[in-house]
């Protein structure tokens, strides 16, 4: 053990009360009022904060998922594709992108995202999921399914 000062050396000998409390005070450092100075009050609020932190780890994932979905939905709407159709079309085209990647593409690479919606729509129309009035506009889009289906012997 390395002691940086005489004070710490003295404290290290007795019961570990000081060090035990200091761990709690470290966690309570950013609190306001007596919550950060008085141990019996600090420990209650540290407990509460740790419970929030535990719950927050799950909530953060849910929140981010909702945010990504909102963004992708907004981008889908710009290209007149439903969110469910879009995701199903991508899965059927073997394009396994998660929500985060799709949201990033929608935000930063709008042309890439447009291409993805085209592919998803093309696949949805080919598989009979979607009945588009102007499906001719998708004629220039080629999915892997088109090639394999046309090569397959009938």
């Amino acid at each position, binding site marked *: 053990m390395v002691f940086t000062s005489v004070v710490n050396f003295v404290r290290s000998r007795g019961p570990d009360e000081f060090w035990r409390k200091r761990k709690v005070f470290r966690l309570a450092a950013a609190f306001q009022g007596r919550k950060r100075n008085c141990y019996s009050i600090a420990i209650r609020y540290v407990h509460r904060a740790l419970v929030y932190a535990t719950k927050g780890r799950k909530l953060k994932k849910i929140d981010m998922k909702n*945010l990504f979905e*909102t*963004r*992708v939905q*907004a*981008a889908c*709407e*710009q290209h007149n594709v439903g969110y469910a159709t879009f995701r199903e079309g991508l899965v059927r085209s073997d394009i396994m992108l998660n929500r985060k990647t799709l*949201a990033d593409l*929608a*935000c930063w690479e*709008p042309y890439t*995202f447009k291409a993805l919606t085209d592919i998803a729509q093309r696949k949805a129309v080919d598989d009979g999921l979607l009945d588009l009035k102007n499906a001719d506009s998708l004629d220039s889009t080629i999915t892997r399914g088109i090639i394999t289906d046309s090569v397959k012997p009938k």
Partner: protein
Amino acid sequence: MSALKRVQQWATFARIWHLYDAAWQNPFDSAQVIKKHLMGLHKPIYHTMSQCGDVVVVINSADIALPGDEWKKRVYFHHTGYPGGASWTLAWELHEKDPTMVLKKAVYNSMDGNIQRRYTMQRLLIFPDSNVPKDILENISNQLRPLRKVPKRLDHYPEKEVKEFPKIIDYPKDYIVK
């Protein structure tokens, strides 16, 4: 930041003014569309903490169409805070008092009750008719698609067209049309 990037940034976060014609529209369905544009939920850059919402100008709110018998059955509650201060107002009464209120409340209630809601509502401008001040009108650059077609009333068709409309039978001569 280069000049191009700077302009791109401005264009991305520019606040767009949308026009929405509420004539013959269901205010509760319209609220979902209006809310989406007010909060910026229609943009891929959406984030709750970033101010990416647009302005929506609603016209003809006096001509909204409530579904079913909602005019008679829908009740708006208000309490002054004093004992006996509760009051219940029917939708048609509220609409007579202020023809923008039903739509305003529909949009307000469609959003989550947080601090941002009041500021988001400030970006919603509702007019009972199509008389919009010029300084507002000149900002508008987009019109939101109405959710349903505005039906044309029978007495608004020219009389000649009504008479010449093909019919299956003629009424018997002794039939009394109400």
